[in-house]
């Protein structure tokens, strides 16, 4: 601990109008360490990162780099000082191809290519326009671009949040090696597994102030959570499958039944059912067709074959409004896809109420207020900056996307990675919420990139690989190893514990396995 810090920030403050994003934050990073920055949603992590890297200006505070006080006024200046960020939102220019994006930032191409390969993307076409690249890959490219210039301090803001397990693993591996190579990394994540696997120390923020710096050691998690949230939280295993689960009993029809769904080359003969009061998980590696499956169920894209049934009746969706009419709500993983960023929290939540032609008339403001506030309360959305959703922290924005459908009282909710970038406390809330919804006879289809979540919330896990349902596990059997095996398309060894689906449609497993 005798080495002097590479980066030392103290007393950093930033106000947005009435909102104090940062009050008194400090952060000190030693050479060669991987330093976690932790805090609940809205604690000010991203704001601190933006200040350190010159994207916004602090109202107060002192920042020393290698003991020198530097005035970093722009990301370009930060880059010259050896500080390179990967922000929470992708920073590639959407209309330029990857190569041009590299030239724009003066990034050497060959090291970039090497890093991309290292990070688990063997076949990147660098003439592809960024707009056409999936979000997860973009995040990785963003990281590779930063790595390619070998920065002294690499700042990663929720780098792994949008990544599927396989890519996240690679990223962690690479970041780890950065530390070993003597470079420092500031690592923001809400996932404790990653923190404990990767980081040396952690700085914890609460309400814009640094409340502690700790060494990462086994069992420290409880401490951190306590610091982050100010209170001790009950880390319960919410799951404990609801009693009504597999009682997709004889008489009651499934809420949602998908038969032989086909979508170009993306989805192939997908069949499964979602029962009333069930939370079914979908687990898959990146790009196995899960995006398309959700989009098709939500009425966003039209399947090329197969059928969808709701409550036993066949439906055809030509627009999301059809799905909504059938009681199916879709929460996309990318919140910029779901929110009107300049509008208020209230308007965003109430948006579906006005969608139909017959709802274009005068709004009953009082009733709306009641419905919206109860949804806000239920998800504990931090409404200090509620005038415009874009001013909420990333996690709170995510909550608004869910609150909308709680307010609209949707009967079936398709959640695509809803806990992306959400802090531990809130995650627990969301798990509980999903279980509660199931208890109220609602159904949830839940895609997640975190294995742990699947086990915690779901009654059943559907695994997708290469556009096919390869296996279905009751939650008891959904241990990490078997889920991973299935997700990589490997056949299940024993045939004794066949999933529910297999009984419905014999042979589908055999097909997938071959």
């Amino acid at each position, binding site marked *: 601990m005798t080495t002097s810090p590479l980066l030392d920030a103290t007393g950093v403050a930033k106000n947005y109008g009435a909102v104090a994003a940062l009050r008194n934050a400090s952060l000190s990073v030693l050479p060669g360490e991987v330093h976690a920055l932790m805090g609940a949603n809205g604690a000010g992590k991203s704001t601190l990162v933006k200040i350190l890297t010159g*994207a916004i200006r602090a109202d107060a505070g002192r920042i020393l780099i290698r003991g020198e006080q530097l005035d970093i006024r*722009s*990301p*370009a200046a930060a*880059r010259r000082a050896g500080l390179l*960020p990967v*922000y929470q*939102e*992708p*920073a*590639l*220019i*959407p*209309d*330029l191809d990857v190569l*041009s*994006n590299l*030239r*724009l*930032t*003066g990034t050497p191409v060959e090291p970039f290519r090497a890093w991309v390969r290292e990070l688990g993307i063997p076949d990147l076409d660098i*003439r*592809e*326009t960024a707009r056409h690249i999936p979000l997860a890959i973009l995040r990785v490219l963003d990281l590779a671009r930063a790595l390619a210039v070998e920065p002294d301090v690499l700042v990663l803001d929720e780098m792994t949040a949008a990544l599927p397990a396989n890519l996240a693993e690679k990223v962690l591996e690479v970041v780890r090696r950065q530390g070993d190579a003597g470079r420092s990394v500031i690592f923001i994540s809400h996932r404790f597994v990653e923190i404990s696997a990767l980081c040396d120390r952690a700085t914890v923020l609460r309400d814009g102030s640094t409340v502690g710096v700790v060494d990462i050691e086994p069992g420290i998690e409880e401490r951190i959570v306590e610091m982050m949230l100010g209170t001790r939280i009950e880390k319960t295993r919410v799951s404990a499958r609801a009693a009504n689960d597999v009682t997709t009993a004889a008489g009651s029809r499934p809420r949602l039944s998908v038969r032989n769904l086909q*979508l*170009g080359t993306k989805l192939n003969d997908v069949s499964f059912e979602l029962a009333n009061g069930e939370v079914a998980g979908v687990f898959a590696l990146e790009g196995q067709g899960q995006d398309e499956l959700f989009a*098709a169920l939500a009425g*966003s*894209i*039209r*399947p*090329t074959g197969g059928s969808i049934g709701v409550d036993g009746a066949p439906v055809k969706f*030509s*627009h999301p409004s059809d799905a909504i009419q059938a009681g199916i709500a879709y929460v996309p993983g990318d919140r910029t896809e779901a929110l009107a960023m300049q509008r208020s929290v209230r308007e965003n939540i109430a948006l579906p109420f006005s969608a139909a032609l017959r709802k274009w008339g005068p709004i009953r403001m009082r009733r709306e207020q009641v419905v919206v506030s109860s949804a806000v309360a239920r998800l504990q959305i931090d409404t200090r900056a509620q005038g415009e959703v874009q001013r909420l922290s990333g996690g709170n924005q995510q909550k608004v996307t869910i609150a909308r459908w709680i307010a609209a009282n949707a009967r079936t909710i398709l959640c695509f990675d809803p806990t992306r970038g959400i802090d531990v406390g809130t995650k627990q809330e969301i798990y509980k919420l999903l279980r509660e919804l199931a208890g109220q006879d609602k159904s949830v289809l839940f895609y997640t990139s975190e294995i742990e979540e699947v086990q915690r919330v779901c009654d059943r896990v559907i695994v997708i690989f290469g556009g096919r349902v390869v296996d279905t596990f009751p939650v008891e059997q959904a241990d990490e190893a078997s889920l991973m095996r299935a997700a990589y398309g490997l056949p299940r060894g024993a045939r004794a514990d066949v999933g529910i689906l297999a009984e419905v449609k014999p042979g589908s497993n055999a097909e997938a396995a071959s």
Partner: protein
Amino acid sequence: MSRFLRNQGWVAGLFALLVFLFIITKLIQPGYGSGDFGSLARAVLPYAFAVAAQTIVVIAGGIDLSVAAMMALTSVTAASMMNGASEEYALFVVPFVLAMGLVLGALNGVLIVVTRVPDIVVTLATLFVLQGAALLVLGAPGGAAAEWLKASVIGTVPISGLPDWADAWVPKALLLLVVCLCIIWIPLRRSRLGLSIYAIGSNELAAFRSGVPVARTRIIAYALSGLFGAMGGLSLTISTGIGAPIPGPYLLASVAAVVLGGVALGGGKGGLLGPIIAVFVLRLVRTDLTLLAIDPNVTAIIEGAIMVAVVMFGAFITIRGRPAGAMP
């Protein structure tokens, strides 16, 4: 290949439309020849520069309502400076006016950056300012242009190695246009500055975070727009031999051609070739309407309808061309 089509398909389609129109023209007027093509090139000249001026700021995510006024001001300035002056003096006038366009354009950019007022309002304000300035320079149309300048857009260029009949199809005006545009556009397009212009138009925040100096890039984009505007103004003076303080119909025409040319209003997408071809298309349509002696009131209807129809058609094939199953 599919990416080429995705990126360049619009321009290619537009070019096909142009060729088609040339065939139509030849059918309507079998005597349509190289001289008439020269006329077309001269008619295209001011529009093309106006469109180039507009294109560059639209790519940078802005819009320039002051294009036509900029042309008027530079045109009257050039015309009044050359009035009664010697032929050689024009050698000084041309760079002076170009520099003036560059500076005034940069001023647009500076005002946008400093006041943080939306582009559309700033350039609307400068539209009035430049118009007023043009009126102060010349209260009524007048002035003059040097003879060598006027000659620079008339006739054809003998190119060694080309047979005469082919030479006849290379009007000076076209060559001048190509040279002026390429001298600026080609090096720009390949440079980091060019990428920065696309970047700020595509996503300003991401550009800023990628280390692009957003303010400076915006100012440069407007400065280049001013430079193209000055070229447009000079081309007006050169072709008419006078300067007129009332702006011509170049503003809306430039916006229309930019969109027809496949440059997205909003920024980040497209190039210069498409809009220039679009200008040729629009001018040739006018020629055809005149050749056909269509009722002039109907020509307004036809021009409007063509503009809408082409863009609608483009939108339609874009919708159809989406990957299987996708909906608009």
